[in-house]
């Protein structure tokens, strides 16, 4: 008799991956049902980092809440800062000075760059290549220095304010940023040469955990992960917020270059290419940086009118949205963060079936999941 997988009697194994597993990018617990090394089912168990940020928001004033938005996603604090401030400004109808808008774009795009550095580096590290991650961290350090000289912080920036930014760019910032852009372009090429076309790396990612276009939309996967599935959609280009309509940049789309559209390799490639686009945007924003105020007039006791607002922004991991309900008092009556990684994790059980255990770390890495953002 020929022994095949269907005739061979095997025993299923229940495996607990996390919450302290080295490559779950935080405290994520995946309960796996395995047949040998083949994953039959994945049950993500989240909530280990739940801090109740939405509940905290209900007892703080609008301005007091800004530092908390940093903690929603620690790898892209600027972007969450920006999103929250935009939402409140929309609610209260505040016009932000042009210079402040440019500074915000520079900051969020720089933050996107370093977030993608970590994303790509961590994926490579999960696949066993440690070196690209450390190459990337060297570059990330320079952006952290830029942020530090701007707002004094290296991780949780608390830089944006309702109606502007907390302070103008420091002296020498523009020159240093130009220098960084130049260096980064060269270095990013170098890191890519090391890893992107590496045969083993491609083999590990191509055709793994394919996310189809229909699934991506139904599960509301957004950002680079959606584009990897072949959907030509970028909020910054298609529904521009802030001053994104003034910049010229391309939106990379997944084409299944080494496998199927929407596989892990495409998701990785989107981040690599987006980094180049972000570099372009920062350069244009620096070129066109206008003079002027950086903070609009906002009353000390800030009371937005009664109403609600739903604001979306293109964050490094996808579209993050904030929903704020105001009852006309100094405190919001409801704040809800809709986060991209939450949706990404929701699709795991669908796309990880039939993959191998080793692929699972590639999937986590390719979706670039950040757990504080999932749990809030």
């Amino acid at each position, binding site marked *: 008799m020929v022994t095949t997988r269907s005739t061979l009697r095997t025993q299923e*194994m229940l*495996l*607990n991956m996390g919450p302290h*597993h*080295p*490559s779950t990018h935080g405290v994520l617990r995946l309960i796996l049902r395995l047949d040998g*090394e083949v994953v039959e089912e994945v049950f993500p168990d989240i909530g280990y980092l739940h801090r109740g940020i939405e509940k905290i928001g209900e007892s703080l004033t609008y301005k007091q809440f800004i530092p908390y938005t940093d903690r929603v996603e620690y790898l892209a604090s600027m972007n969450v800062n920006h999103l929250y401030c935009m939402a409140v400004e929309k609610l209260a109808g505040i016009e932000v000075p042009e210079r402040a808008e440019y500074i915000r774009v520079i900051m969020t795009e720089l933050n996107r760059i370093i977030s993608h550095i970590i994303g790509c580096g961590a994926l*490579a*590290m*999960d*696949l*066993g*290549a*440690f*070196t690209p991650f*450390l*190459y990337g961290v*060297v570059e990330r350090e320079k952006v952290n220095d830029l942020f530090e000289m701007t707002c004094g912080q290296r991780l949780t920036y608390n830089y944006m304010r309702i109606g502007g930014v907390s302070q103008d760019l420091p002296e020498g910032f523009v020159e240093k940023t130009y220098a960084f852009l130049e260096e980064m372009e060269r270095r990013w090429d170098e890191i890519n040469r*090391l*890893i992107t076309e*590496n045969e*083993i*790396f491609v*083999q*590990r990612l191509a055709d793994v955990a394919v996310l189809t276009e229909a699934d991506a939309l139904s599960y509301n996967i957004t950002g680079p992960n959606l584009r990897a599935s072949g959907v030509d959609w970028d909020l910054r280009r298609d529904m521009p917020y802030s001053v994104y309509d003034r910049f010229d940049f391309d939106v990379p789309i997944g084409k299944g270059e080494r496998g199927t559209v929407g596989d892990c390799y495409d998701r990785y490639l989107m981040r690599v290419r987006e980094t180049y686009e972000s570099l372009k945007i920062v350069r244009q924003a620096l070129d066109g940086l206008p003079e002027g105020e950086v903070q609009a007039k906002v009353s000390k006791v800030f009371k937005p009118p009664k109403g609600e607002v739903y604001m979306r922004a293109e964050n490094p991991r996808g579209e993050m949205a904030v929903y704020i309900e105001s009852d006309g008092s100094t405190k919001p009556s409801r704040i809800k963060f809709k986060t991209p990684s939450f949706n990404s994790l929701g699709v795991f059980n669908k796309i990880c079936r039939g993959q*191998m*255990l*080793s*692929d*699972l*770390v590639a999937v986590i890495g390719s979706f670039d999941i950040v757990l504080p953002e999932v749990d809030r």
Partner: protein
Amino acid sequence: MESSSFLFAEFLQQAFHVSPTFAAVLSLLIGVGTCVACIPLIPGFGSYLERKVSADIQQRIGPNRAGFLPFGIMQVLADGIKTLQKEDLIPAHADRFLFRAAPYVCIVGVFSCFAAIPFSEYGYLSDLNIGVYYILCVSSLMAVGIVLAGWASNNKWTLLGGIRSAGQMVSYEIPIAMSVVTVAMHFGSLSLAEMTMAQREGWSIGFWNSNLFVTLSFVVYWIAALAECNRTPFDIPEAESELVAGYFTEYSGLRFSFFAIAEYAEMFVVSAMAVVLYFGGFYLPFEAHLPFLQELPDGVLPWLHFIVFLIKVWFLIFLMIWIRWTLPRYRIDQLMDLCWKGLLPFAFLNFLGSACWMVLGG
């Protein structure tokens, strides 16, 4: 050639007038003792090299603070002392006997290989006429130790690591054996010492001048050797980002360091094999054409050979480290594909090619 233990036995017999049997046993014991005492230096230096080379590759500095010696050399000692101090944990539901035994199985398997390695003219314990065969067999014991460790820990991650390693090591033994057989056929001998002697006349750094296929078999040997040592890109049994730490997840302290020692010693053994089979053993390049070497004072040349041998081996180990910090890791099925669909047919064809070369080319 005469082994150092044999010479030492003769010396004992003459100096102390003991019986030949006693002298032989005593000299062997001393030889083995020296060997066992010196082998732990290999992982010590190996781990230091690994740290420093990886640091250099990754634009870091690496250890530079430990102790009073420069360049962080004392880090090796600090690591050793640290592992000695750790609590020796055995998981509650582990198979206690097998759990304890597994590191020894690994260590014994690897250390036994050193008996047949010719470090220099006199620097070996035993000139086995089946030296290559002996090393291949004994080093397989490491796979047994790893599977035991994975099984006995009673942990699903270690079990996965153990099973992976069983599959991997059993598979990759075949290409290694085939490439070694190609070389053995070329020399007409299975003795490592004789193989070394035969390379004295040649370039002594590979012999593509005489048989192309033998040189090609080095490629197969080296890839398979990386897999045998569980080195990246084939480190799936211990894949730290997938299986936490693989088969030694549950080990701590001295038992854990035994696995580390075994791993570095295994690296040394496969590199030493490569040096003997493909890179002229302990001989200098073009040694037969360097007459002044013969005029050196008595006893200097063997030591020179010893140093040459170590340099060659450590260069290959450096190569392994270099590969490890550059490449990502294969998946288990891709690893098996590479072995059974790539390396193995290539090794067989290579073997056939070498045979044809010998028949036709004389």
